[in-house]
């Protein structure tokens, strides 16, 4: 999932010594089609191309639970695993999903032409429709705050920045298509 394209992804693939095919999803096609809002993800397909497992966010080969499930799927011990119910606070209509994609693509086009600030504006418009989408949010961060990603990723900063941005968005009423949850009054 790499808006900055092949050259941003390549060093990571080389470092991992990957021997499997690697594709570059510059416009979040998979995110739009599968409707996930975060990576890292694992999706397992059987020989007929049927989806048998999905984990959106937090999938890791360093998590023994994830590895164990994949092992059982490969070995045929289990046929599939039904995913946990989504914790999303809203569901986007197909029209809104198309609109998000249009704004992401426009932002990518602007970035490739060197119009960084305008690109960020378009991505922010996409994020306003889908504020829980961490892929869009991190895409903005990577371009806006590159020092937080190179030479290493500042995970602590990401946690704080997410909190700050969500507070500010909620204040402005940006919570998704159904609006913000009504805050509790003191004493309730």
């Amino acid at each position, binding site marked *: 999932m790499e808006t900055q394209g092949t050259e941003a992804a390549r060093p990571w693939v080389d470092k991992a010594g990957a021997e499997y*095919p690697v594709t570059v999803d510059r416009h979040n096609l998979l995110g739009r089609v599968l409707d996930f809002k975060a990576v890292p993800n694992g999706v397992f397909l059987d020989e007929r191309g049927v989806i048998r497992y999905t984990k959106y966010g937090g999938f890791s*080969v360093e998590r023994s639970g994830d590895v164990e499930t994949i092992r059982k799927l490969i070995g045929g011990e289990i046929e599939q695993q039904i995913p946990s119910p989504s914790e999303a606070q809203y569901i986007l209509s197909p029209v809104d999903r198309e609109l998000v994609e249009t704004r992401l693509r426009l932002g990518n086009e602007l970035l490739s032409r060197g119009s960084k600030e305008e690109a960020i504006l378009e991505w922010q418009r996409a994020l306003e429709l889908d504020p829980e989408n961490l892929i869009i949010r991190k895409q903005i961060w990577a371009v806006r705050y590159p020092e937080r990603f190179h030479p290493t990723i500042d995970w602590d900063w990401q946690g704080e920045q997410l909190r700050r941005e969500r507070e500010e968005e909620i204040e402005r009423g940006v919570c998704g298509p159904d609006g913000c949850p009504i805050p509790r009054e003191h004493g309730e």
Partner: protein
Amino acid sequence: MNVDINIIPTVGDSFPDLSLPKLDGEELSFSELRGRKVLLFMWGSW
């Protein structure tokens, strides 16, 4: 490539017939992967 945006594929559904470019520039069509079990791992550099 035909993708119906009204249906979100999940466990039990066929993986949609998409293609994406590989690092070497060639296209990978997901339907090419049939015939073997496949683990897709999706990540971002951020």
